[in-house]
């Protein structure tokens, strides 16, 4: 850790040009709750740290007709306690509130949670369910990627070496839509064993499911959408049997691992339970039966 240099540029362009200047030697940091651990353990050995927290353009929550923009360096706690997010994008507020302790949420950022690309990231599943898109700044332009294509594997995102995640955009929810976020974990502060986010809309009050996204975290190398389970429900007015069928489908569609926290088979069983719960709750909230 000798001779590390540190920059906290006030503008995004400066951060991008620092990345270009230092190449592989540079490491980006936002809240640092994950990065500093890896630095301490020698898992990363950067020559230069580029701290993104001073960049105004990366902070804050803004909404308009089209939807919601959240700067990548916005704090987890700001997201968890934002009234706007709690009321209109509730599953994201719940996901953010599930991250670590308050000490961590006061430091950790949304962009950091996503860019670390942990399969268990608690904000990733809700954001994918909500149809979120990542806006990524490079040297020349900003490109947009659906969040479900953002993650490539554990610790791997689609960010190129000179790129910085700028913000997340979430389209405004359509009428009669609602979601649910469920997770199970060993202790209050631990990362999720499994998490599940569902977001759906109904064609009419009490009517058929028009659109639905079911997203699972911690059961595959990346957060995953289980489209087979979505297909079971789309266009239907689901009864208990259909919901169970969708939950079975979700459990069959994942590839959980055994690790110190839990066995694969327990995770798979929990996928079934959480998916069922999430579908039921989302249907109730949207004004359907169940």
């Amino acid at each position, binding site marked *: 850790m000798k*001779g590390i240099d540190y920059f906290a540029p006030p503008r995004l362009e400066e951060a991008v040009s620092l990345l270009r200047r230092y190449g592989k030697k540079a490491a980006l940091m936002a809240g640092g709750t994950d990065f500093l651990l890896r630095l301490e353990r020698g898992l990363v050995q950067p020559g230069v740290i580029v701290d993104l927290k001073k960049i105004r353009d990366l902070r804050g929550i803004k909404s308009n007709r089209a939807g919601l923009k959240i700067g990548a360096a916005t704090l987890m706690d700001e997201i968890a306690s934002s009234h706007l997010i709690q009321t209109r994008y509730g599953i994201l507020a719940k996901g953010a509130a599930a991250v*670590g*302790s308050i000490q*961590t949420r006061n430091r950790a950022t949304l962009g950091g949670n996503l860019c670390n690309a942990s399969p268990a990231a608690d904000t990733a599943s809700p954001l994918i369910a909500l149809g979120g898109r990542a806006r990524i700044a490079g040297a020349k332009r900003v490109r947009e990627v659906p969040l479900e294509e953002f993650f490539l594997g554990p610790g791997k995102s689609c960010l190129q070496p000179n790129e910085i995640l700028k913000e997340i955009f979430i389209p405004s929810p359509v009428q009669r839509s609602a979601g649910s976020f469920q997770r199970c974990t060993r202790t209050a502060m631990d990362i999720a064993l499994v998490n599940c986010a569902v977001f759906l809309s109904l064609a009419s009050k009490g009517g058929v499911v028009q659109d639905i996204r079911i997203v699972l975290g911690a059961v595959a190398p990346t957060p995953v959408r289980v489209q087979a389970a979505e297909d079971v429900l789309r266009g239907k007015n689901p009864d208990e049997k259909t919901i169970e069928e969708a939950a079975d489908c979700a459990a069959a569609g994942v590839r959980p691992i055994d690790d110190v926290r839990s066995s694969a088979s327990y995770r798979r069983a929990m996928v079934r339970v959480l998916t069922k719960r999430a579908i039921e709750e989302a249907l109730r909230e949207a004004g359907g039966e169940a």
Partner: protein
Amino acid sequence: MARRTKRIRVTVNGERYEKEVSPSKSLLDFLRMDLNLTGTKEGCGEGECGACSIIMNGKLVDSCLILTVEADGQKIQTIEGISRHDRLHPLQKAFAEKGAAQCGYCTPGMIMAAKYLLDHNPSPTAEQVLKAIAGNLCRCTGYGSIVDAVLSAAKER
């Protein structure tokens, strides 16, 4: 080549400091070693135990997971800064009275977490107290006396 140190300015417990620090030094080490404020403890050094909790710009944070250079221009409060002259903070008194400190190692962090709670929610329920200290581990007390102390301090204030 990279410079070895950076100059920073911080306000800690109302006092202003200007220092040269290594960019890789944690804020916890800076407080303890450079400023001699050893009330803030290191338990895990990994953001798990909360022993190093401080309040920076009004937010409760783990100082072990912050670089000193990140604190440039910020206002910090540590356990040493919450008593007024020789009068203990109501939380400190309540912890003493309720036996909420046994070995005492978690206590400074616990009190900072409790203070952050009471600053935002002056009359919390027991459940809210437990939630507020979820990031602070105590190996001795079993938490019961800590919750009692926080609740009784809330009544005092």
